[in-house]
């Protein structure tokens, strides 16, 4: 059994970065995720693991610091909340183009614009459909507990190197701020420079006489070569869909109605399922853990068994579009959710089940 601690989600993420052997963290304060950099600055991993921690002058600088670090073969992490993530988008697109590993945490707050500082899930489109420019995808993980704010750092690390692609952990103000018991995994040492060079022969660590120079770039002015490059990226995203979809099913085996949700909304929906079952309503929940790749195949299978699906998210309807695409009109799909920083309650969701799904 690993070490147990009572922590905020943001702190669990920060501690997990140190323990996972992440090489560098670059960030900029914004509510509700500033605990990440505060925790790291207090923990001083640069004195123990050698992990670099730096408060940059902006989100733009911090994401580009991540680019430099990753281009040199290191694993960087950064975190922010919605407005700051928007600023990082250019850099994220560059990193996807240059095929660089990265862990990005978005502790989503209400928006658009400066919005508010309450939890929301309104950055789903930005995270899963692009956000930055160009033909790329992020691998997107949605934690729904403080435990997963820690555990998903390890998954993110593995995926970031497996595909040489940025991974986003799409959290929200609930998961970031709430305190729960966490079982921390044992620390994994950071790689030595020799290990970095062995794992990442493409990295810019200084050109040795026995190899060609290494170049990290997202530029290729020849459209035919650029097309080839984009198609190569596309193949990676297809592979993610084959090999790395993650989801959790709660009471679906006999379900007549299905909720689809992720993150803190899925936590709420779990309670709704319990309430419904007490009333004899056969309600189940599919919790998407990866938002890209989306567990659409599984949802399509479940669509054959249920009378209707309700996508429940803290937004006016973003996830619901992927659910609709997945079931391709085979069953009715509805949306329910509060937005702008308001969190729906389990009974509100149950009412929506009755009023929309069961009508």
């Amino acid at each position, binding site marked *: 059994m690993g070490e147990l601690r009572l922590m905020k989600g943001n702190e669990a993420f920060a501690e997990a970065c140190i323990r996972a052997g992440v*090489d*560098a963290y*670059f960030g900029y304060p914004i509510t509700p995720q500033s605990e990440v950099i505060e925790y790291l600055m207090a923990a001083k991993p640069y004195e123990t693991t050698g992990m*670099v921690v*730096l408060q*940059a*002058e*902006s989100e*733009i*600088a*911090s994401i*580009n*610091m*991540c*680019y*430099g*670090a990753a*281009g*040199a073969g*290191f694993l*960087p992490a950064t975190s922010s909340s919605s407005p700051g993530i928007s600023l990082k988008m*250019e*850099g994220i697109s*560059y990193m996807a183009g*240059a095929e660089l590993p990265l862990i990005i945490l978005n502790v989503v707050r209400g928006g658009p614009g400066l919005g508010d500082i309450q939890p929301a899930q309104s950055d789903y489109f930005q995270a899963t459909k692009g956000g930055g420019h160009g033909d790329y995808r992020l691998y997107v993980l949605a934690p729904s507990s403080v435990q997963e704010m820690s555990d998903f750092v390890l998954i993110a690390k593995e995926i970031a190197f497996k595909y040489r692609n940025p991974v986003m952990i799409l959290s929200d103000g609930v998961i970031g701020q709430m305190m729960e018991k966490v079982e921390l995994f044992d620390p994994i040492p950071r790689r030595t*420079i020799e290990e970095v060079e062995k794992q990442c022969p493409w990295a*810019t*660590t*200084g*050109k*040795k*006489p026995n190899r060609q*120079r*290494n*170049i*990290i*770039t*997202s*530029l290729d002015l020849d459209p035919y070569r650029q097309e080839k490059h984009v198609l190569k990226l596309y193949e990676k995203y297809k592979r993610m869909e084959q090999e790395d979809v993650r989801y959790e099913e709660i009471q679906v085996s006999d379900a007549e109605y299905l909720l689809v949700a992720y993150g803190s909304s899925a936590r709420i929906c779990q309670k709704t399922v319990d309430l419904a079952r007490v009333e004899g309503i056969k309600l189940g929940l599919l919790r998407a853990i990866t938002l890209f790749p989306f567990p659409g195949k599984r949802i399509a299978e479940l669509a054959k068994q249920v009378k209707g699906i309700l996508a429940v998210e803290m937004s006016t309807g973003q996830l619901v579009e992927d659910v609709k695409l997945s079931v391709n009109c085979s069953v009715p799909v509805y949306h329910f959710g509060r937005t702008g920083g308001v969190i729906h309650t389990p009974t509100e969701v149950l009412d929506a089940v009755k009023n929309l799904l069961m009508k």
Partner: protein
Amino acid sequence: MDIKDIIKPENLVYRRTPLLTDKPLSYCPGCGHGTIHRIIMEVIEEMNIQDKTIGIAPVGCSVLAYEFMDIDMQQAAHGRATALATAIKRLLPDRFVFTYQGDGDLAAIGTAETIHACNRGENFIIFFVNNGIYGMTGGQMAPTTLPGMKASTCPFGRDTKIMGNPLKITELVAQLPGTYYVTRQAVHTPNAVRKAKKAVRNAFEYSKLNKGLCFIEFVSNCNSGWKMNAVQANKWMEENMFPFYPLGDIKVPQPEKV
């Protein structure tokens, strides 16, 4: 005398450093970028630090610098080269790291990154090529475009009342405690090239000391953007750019510090 009798090591007065690749330069004939590339690569060769040096290319005419420089390089988003360099140098503190940036890249879109990297005293080198214009995108006004100077977005000349004043960013960064060595050079004559190369060497030597950022501005030309031939451009640069951007050292380490 036969040509074979002349090609002897003792007669060698100039050779291309092998640290420049065989790829033909993409720069316009007469452009300063090529010469600046050469002296940087010559210094890296002379110091035998090819395996320890990492360069960052900007967005601008020198976006493809990595095609010409035979060292490990990264290509940054427009203006962000110093952010990349900050991370690389902190993770690989025994390497030499430099950025190579134009005036639009360094002093417009990347101003924040430039100033904060300088202010933090990051231990890398910034090579700043100031040609007073956006070369790559076709000659638009730059933050360093001189008052009255024409560019495609100030076709009647830069009117400082409307467009603001040119930014002397080199003087500005010299004020910051994090910069260790700040100098302004040019490469328009053999003598200037020699001086500039000495400054490049100084910057690499100083960067071993880990005492802060070394910043070299090259006042350069853009004959295409300025709509002149190469000779006219160099003359115009001497007559107009140098009075506004005077050459010479701006901040030199005190002897006891070195």
